């Protein structure tokens, strides 16, 4: 459904993505792992057109995504790393942002409250502003905004970073449920192995601008790649420092 071919991107002299090839089937949940600063967010930003790749192709349903950007975005939702809720709008308007364009206010609010309930937030949150929410609640509200209009494709950028293990587990479970329920195609970025196991069907390891290893979550533990095994186990080696 989404296909990347030879995707490259550099900032100045720094080559961040160096020929990424990746294919994602409809309804599949792909998790991209890799160390901090390896270009995971840049990868998503390239797909979304927020960065212009230096080389390579991004295909969606067999045609270049750039040519069907509006159609893609209509069925798209994203949970940003720090939720990126709009500070100037109350939570329900954040969640209903897309809906408000095509349905009356009352109806949009009802859907927003229902989506908030889906992510475990009560109706009392609807009229609060994002500044009044804790980090975990913001993530949930951001998740509600991402799924508000029943997207076919969802991206999650580090959904559990900055949360305690219990809240992180709750978000992981929620994401898996939502992906299963809606059958949406999902890309999740993380360096949290618990998230990988909870959310992913397939895993891709990003290292020095390339996909170093990819396979199913089940294959991951038996894979011979030393770096992947160290990543899974959280082992440090001197040669990784500074990478």
């Amino acid at each position, binding site marked *: 459904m989404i296909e990347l071919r030879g995707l490259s991107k550099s900032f100045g002299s720094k080559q961040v993505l160096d020929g990424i090839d990746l294919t994602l089937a409809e309804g599949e949940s792909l998790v991209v792992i890799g160390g901090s600063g390896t270009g995971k967010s840049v990868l998503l930003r390239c797909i979304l*057109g*927020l960065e212009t790749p230096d080389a390579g192709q991004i295909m969606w349903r067999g045609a270049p995504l750039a040519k069907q950007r509006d159609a893609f*975005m209509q069925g798209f939702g994203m949970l*940003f790393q*720090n939720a990126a*809720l*709009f500070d100037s709008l109350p939570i329900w308007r954040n969640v209903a*942002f*897309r809906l408000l364009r095509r349905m009356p206010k009352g109806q949009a609010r009802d859907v927003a409250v229902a989506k908030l309930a889906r992510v475990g937030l009560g109706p009392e949150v609807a009229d609060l502003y994002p500044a009044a929410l804790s980090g975990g609640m913001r993530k949930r509200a951001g998740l509600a905004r991402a799924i508000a209009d029943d997207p076919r494709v969802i991206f999650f950028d580090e959904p559990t970073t900055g949360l305690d293990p219990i809240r992180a587990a709750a978000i992981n479970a929620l994401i898996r449920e939502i992906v299963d329920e809606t059958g949406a195609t999902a890309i999740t970025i993380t360096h949290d192995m618990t998230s990988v196991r909870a959310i992913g069907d397939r895993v891709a390891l990003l290292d020095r601008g390339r996909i170093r290893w990819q396979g199913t979550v089940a294959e991951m533990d038996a894979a011979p790649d030393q770096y992947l095994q160290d990543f899974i186990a959280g082992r440090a080696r001197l040669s990784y420092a500074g990478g």
Partner: protein
Amino acid sequence: MNPIRLIGRASIALTRNLGRVSIFAARGLVGVGSHPAELARQILHIGWLSLPVVGLTALFTGAALALQIHSGGARFQASDVVPAIVAIGMARELGPVLGGLMVAARVASAIAAELGTMRVTEQIDALVTLSTDPMRWLVSPRLWAAILCVPVLVGVGDVIGIMGGWLVGVNALGFNSATYIANSWAYLERWDVVSGLVKGGFFGAIVALSGCWFGMNAGNGAAGVGRATTSAVVAASVGILAANFLLTGLFFR
């Protein structure tokens, strides 16, 4: 490095940035009408909430001007021109320039800080993923609100400034109230006022454009937002003074 090459490189950079800002401005200007509720909200923020600061500035400026013209005019027995000079000075020059500068301080900084924060917290990227053009949602309403509101603020400032002169004239300089008002009107021409209002429209555009440009292009983190805010106020203030010179030359030569 070769000085000619240096000048060449600087000119190319300047031209390129001018081009970018022009395209940015054009996109902001044409995007009006997509989000009327946002425009109304910005008119409230940029226009209505700037009234106190613009009014106070005009009041004190008109009052000080009256004192200055009175004592300066006394050197050649011309202190009766106080009302006319206060009115003309406020309408043509001080109303728009000082009003514009106060709006620059208040509004350019606020816009740059708000949009800069939205940039570094990925809220602007979030807009794109919600099928919303940030130019239409964020920039157009602010740009048009400033273009529409600053002339009104300048008009209000003119009236308040003339009133400040009148207060001083009547209470401290021994003018008769009716004569003062009559003299203010007698020498004031329509173009004096209209030129000031037109200047106000340009200054509004400069203020909003500076705020939006530096905000939308803010660098990383809190420091990036701080730099954007400073740059926006400096660019807006210098821009207003430069534009004022050009427009004055154009209008009154």
